[in-house]
């Protein structure tokens, strides 16, 4: 009898404990973000000690919107954010298209060199980023020199080279994600479509694409995130006037990373929250 009582007691405790554990896990994940948000209202120029409430950092973000000078603490943040978003958007679009094409080719067709392509695909994922960055830099410098000798046009590193760099490592992530979905797909679905008279293009648009769309979507989201906070590859491929947010934040370490960075992070957090909520709404309706 007592044993049953003990068991029931343990079970009750266990139930409570689960809640505590969940709460702790969430606290671990979200407390730092909460502190980041709180410190964006910090009156101190340094992110270390709380010195009272202010909205100045948010104000400074927008008052210097047009400036490209990272001289005063917060100027240059918005242009850098602009660059970051532009690079992420374009490189995500390109990488998603190329990556999906590559995934389809590898999964559906047999061609000479397929194994080699597969092996190469995993390289950007496992290779240290710094190797990719440096090799891209060497490649661009060399290619630009050749173009200049041939055509007399002088090319420079800039936003386009950063975008190419991001596409390089993003293609792998997209392909791997999309391929996983393709592998699960029942090939008979496509064969059935062929049997019913659909040509390859039609089968792709009506059957394959809708089925792998969720995977493409999550691959694109992954690519966007990776591109947005990439530092190493960006550092080596960037040129004059194409500072991104991670580069700017890192550059501020020497003197002071001001709460203006917290302010922009808070705004980005809000934006992504809105995005998630609205996409949930859309799915429901």
């Amino acid at each position, binding site marked *: 009898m007592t044993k049953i009582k003990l068991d029931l007691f343990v079970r009750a405790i266990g139930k409570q404990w689960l809640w505590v554990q969940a709460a702790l896990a969430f606290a671990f994940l979200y407390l730092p973000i909460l502190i980041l948000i709180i410190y964006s209202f910090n009156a101190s120029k340094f992110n270390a000690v709380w010195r009272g409430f202010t909205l100045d950092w948010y104000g400074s973000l927008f008052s210097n919107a047009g400036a490209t000078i990272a*001289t005063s603490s917060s100027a240059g943040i918005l242009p850098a954010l602009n660059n970051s978003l532009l690079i992420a958007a374009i490189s995500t679009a390109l990488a998603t298209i190329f990556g999906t094409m590559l995934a389809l080719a590898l999964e559906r067709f047999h061609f000479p060199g397929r194994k080699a392509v597969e092996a190469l695909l995993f390289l950007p994922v496992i290779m240290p980023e710094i190797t990719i960055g440096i090799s891209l830099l060497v490649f661009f410098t060399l290619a630009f020199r050749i173009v200049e000798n041939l055509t007399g046009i002088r090319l420079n590193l*800039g936003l*386009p080279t950063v975008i190419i760099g991001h596409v390089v490592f993003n293609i792998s992530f997209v392909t791997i994600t999309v391929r996983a979905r393709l592998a699960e797909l029942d090939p008979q679905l496509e064969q059935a479509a062929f049997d019913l008279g659909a040509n390859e293009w039609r089968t792709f648009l009506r059957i394959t694409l809708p089925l792998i769309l969720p995977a493409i979507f999550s691959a694109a989201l992954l690519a966007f995130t990776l591109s947005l906070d990439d530092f190493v590859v960006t550092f080596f491929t960037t040129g004059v006037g194409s500072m991104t947010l991670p580069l700017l934040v890192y550059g501020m370490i020497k*003197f002071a990373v001001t709460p203006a960075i917290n302010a922009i992070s808070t705004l980005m957090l809000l934006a992504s929250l809105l995005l998630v909520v609205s996409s949930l709404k859309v799915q429901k309706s």
Partner: protein
Amino acid sequence: MKRLLTFLLLFVMSATVVFGCSRTGGNQQVLSIYNYATYIAPEAIAQFEKENNVKIQYDTFENSDALYAKIQQGNPGYDVIFPADYMVRIMAADNILEPLDIAKIPNKTNLDPRWMNQTFDPENKYSLPYQWGTMGIGYNIKATKGDINSWGAMFDPKYTGKIAWQDDARYTFAAVLMYLGFDPNTTNPAEINKARDLLIKNKNIIAAFVPDTGQTLLDQGEVNLTMEWSGDISQVMKENPNLRYAIPKEGTIVFSDNMAIPKGAPHKELAEKFINFILKPEVGATISNFTHYGSPNKAAIDKGLIDPKDLKNPQIYPPTEIFAKMKFLQDVGKATALYDRAATEVKAGAGK
């Protein structure tokens, strides 16, 4: 084959169009500067833009090594860069700096001779000084209950667990070597080992070797004394009245950041115009009053344009006798390995 060729041609054409477009920015000239963030007065930039009808593109790096990594493979288009003293020597040796045309920089005469002709650029062929500062001890007056003036304070058991050194072998060892009365650029293994042993002996006193974040720890109260750059401490001092900065009487390490033009700069003449502009007494003073680092511009100091509070501050402009004991960190060649090994041994010994 024909298809392949057409494809290649199209690719090259589109690439040229894309990259070509990224360069043109209207008919206004653009001067590209590569410097630290918050290391120039915004007014100075605005004034130069207005006077010369140009636009300044101001990009930032985090340290001289990053600058080197960026420029070494080929200048991506910067006109003026700001390397630290030791980096000028490395870049000049690598032949990636453009010699300055002194005739176009007449304001050079405003500079204090004691910042000129340093060993890293003996004839100022490639660089001219921009700002300078020292490495000293930042401390909390509440903990020390009084002023300190010696590296010896960093070994005082009174502050056990509240001392931070630099996580850079050369800087930390330079301070300890000077405390022991040796040359901070020594290549003598016995002297380096003596410095190492002193650090290991006092391992319990040391809280951490930090990567240039000592001022933050000091501000937070994590440490009471820290080895740090003068400007880093004076910026935090403005918010925290309990903090002080001392240049130890044994001497210390001094640095200067310099203006240089990298090879392949698209607007060399404009760059020289900009350097000449920075060397104007009024402009130099505006910048130093913004950064609170030392100005090498003697004319600006003589004309009383520098903030008197900064000028009277011995931490920013130390008295002559201390000035005489300040030294640049120099490349020690093969002895660098000795320093690295000693530092590793200190860290293993002082690991807490």
